[in-house]
């Protein structure tokens, strides 16, 4: 269970990215965060694994206060929270395998890892995760030789190395074409259903939301404007989240 209580983030330049946001995410949910660019989706996801330090409010995960964690404790929490990104955030010049192995850095001996040493079982684990996302054959390619869809699958494999109980996905398909978008989201769905990993995913397209989400939170200007089931988002609700000029874009 992830509880977000009165979360507020004000950046140094005065921008209010999150304004008193509260909601709960039960284990095993596929929660989609919906909202315009700049609505605070990315900030929200990054507060959960503390890539961003919130200004006020609390995040409690399985009874542990994430917002108060520091140093080793914070890293221990982080290693159970996988994250994938819109721009994939791979190390472009490193091999696919190295990129995947880097997901395990929170577990392995830090001194050995500095010299790029990983035990045999970790390399096996990396290969298993690459197989799972169907690109084991690309393990020794450089990340910058891969296509967008392949890169995001490397991103998923990297997150899987963390044996996550929670998966954060920051617009994971916004840089991909529609067909690939479905294939990536299906992997997330599979992780959610088969492995019981809680997924919190920010998305743009309502069709994708209706197809994959079990629960939806709508953000507008840093505030929660909708909470409920995907079926409850009517066109009217949609306009409340996206503004009056919004037109629904169909994606199949």
């Amino acid at each position, binding site marked *: 269970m992830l509880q977000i209580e009165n979360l507020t983030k004000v950046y140094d330049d005065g921008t209010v990215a999150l304004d008193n946001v509260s909601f709960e995410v039960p284990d095993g949910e596929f929660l989609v965060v919906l909202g315009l660019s700049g609505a605070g989706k990315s900030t929200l996801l990054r507060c959960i694994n503390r890539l961003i330090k919130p200004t006020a409010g609390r995040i409690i995960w399985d009874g542990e206060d994430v917002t108060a964690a520091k140093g080793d404790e914070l*890293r221990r929490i982080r290693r159970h929270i996988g994250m994938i*990104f819109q721009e994939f955030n791979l*190390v472009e010049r490193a091999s696919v395998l190295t990129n995947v192995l880097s997901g395990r850095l929170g577990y392995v001996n830090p001194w050995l890892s500095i010299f790029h040493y990983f035990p045999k079982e970790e390399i096996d684990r990396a290969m298993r995760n690459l197989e799972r996302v169907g690109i084991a054959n690309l393990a020794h390619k450089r990340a910058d030789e891969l296509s967008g869809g392949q890169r995001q699958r490397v991103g998923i494999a990297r997150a899987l190395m963390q044996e996550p109980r929670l998966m954060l996905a920051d617009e994971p398909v916004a840089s991909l074409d529609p067909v690939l978008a479905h294939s990536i989201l299906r992997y997330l769905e599979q992780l959610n259903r088969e492995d019981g990993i809680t997924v919190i995913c920010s998305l743009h397209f309502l069709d994708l939301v209706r197809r994959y989400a079990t629960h939806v939170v709508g953000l507008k200007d840093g505030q929660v404007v909708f909470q409920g089931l995907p079926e409850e988002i009517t066109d009217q609700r949609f306009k409340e989240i996206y503004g009056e000029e919004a037109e629904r874009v169909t994606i199949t």
Partner: protein
Amino acid sequence: MERKKSPVLSSILSLILPGLGQAYAGALSRGVSFFLGIVLAALLVHWRQAYLLYIGIVIAWLWNVWDAYNLAQEKKLSPTIPFILIALIMYIIGWGVTQIDLERLFTNVADVKPLVTSLIQPAVLERDIEQLVAEVKFESPCSDSPPEKGTPSPDEPYLILVDKTCGDPGDTFTVTGGNFWPSTKGYIWWSNLAGEMQFRVRYQGDFLTFQTDEEGNIPPTTVVVQEPFAEAKGKGPQLYRVQARMQREVGSPHLSQTFFLVVEKMLETIFLALMATTIAIFIAIPISFLAARNLMGGHSVTMFIYYAVRTILNILRSIEPLIMAIIFVVWVGLGPFAGVLALAVHSIAALGKLYSEAVESIDPGPIEAITATGANRIQTVVYAVIPQIVPPYIAFTVYRWDINVRMSTIIGFVGGGGIGFLLQQWIRLLMYEEAGAAVWAIAIVVALMDYASAKVREMIV
């Protein structure tokens, strides 16, 4: 409502002081430009005493009055005319200051000819030299027992005195000889008895020469008795050796001593650049992190360090390596070490800046991703920062080494070691063929380095 400006007052102000009327009319920066432009131009004209140019300044000044008059009525004129006038004055003065003299380019072509010819024929190849020497002893000043005149030898080259065997400095005497190579030019040498002090005798500025006949005989040649060497001054009569010498080249051409010397010094030059670059890398890498805004931002102490490091780097970079070499030559003495230090300090400043810009331009995405996995700071640097900065670091380093090889070829001009030291000496001694060899070596090595560094950078980036 804005207060109305008086055009008359404005123009009077500009008449008193250029730009003042413009400032009064509200165009401060325009006023400052007029003031600086006209006053500076006037000072320069005064300095060069090119009083004719005052006409231009007067016109510009009047234009500035006219402009002030118009500005007060909110009419803005295009300042093309005064701009061209001031620029013209500057170029006329500049022409004079830099002593441009196109005529000399053509009239003095002959002076540069031997230099250019030598550059085309560098002293890379040479032939062995065979020498013939014969000598006779001469005494100065005279003692009670002057030396013999010498006897002709039937087969060996010989030199004998004809009229005197002793004399005071400034007197003349005659020598003759035989059994030299026929019809060849030779020189007269003068040395002390021990033989370690010697020089070619001059006569009226030129070297004293003789020309043998078909039988190889030296015609009677008049020699002036030379002043005693410093250590023999006031010690009474001394014996001197008077020699006739002849040289010719024999055998086939082979690589010259100059060539090997140039190669040796060129290697020293390349190593000089290598050492300077390497030292600079080790110091510039940690510094570059301190000079990267994205790593140092967010805290006032780190930002202070950032600005301090940046300022020091900027100051160091503005000092030319040649000037730095002069300082280090005084500090650690002549030689390549001074050059290494000078180039290293300059490279630290240059690489520090380039490296830090590479750090500033890295993609924060991977850092975010690695941090999110629960990695610690060092792991994040190793996995997300270093892979991104290694290629630009290598590219900048190779580029810098290329520049350092170039710089190290001339750093010897101020005593910093390397081939520049030789080149500078040869030019001063008018040994243009040797200098030519050095110039060629520099050109070849620099071109190769340039090509190689471009290739390496192409491969990496």
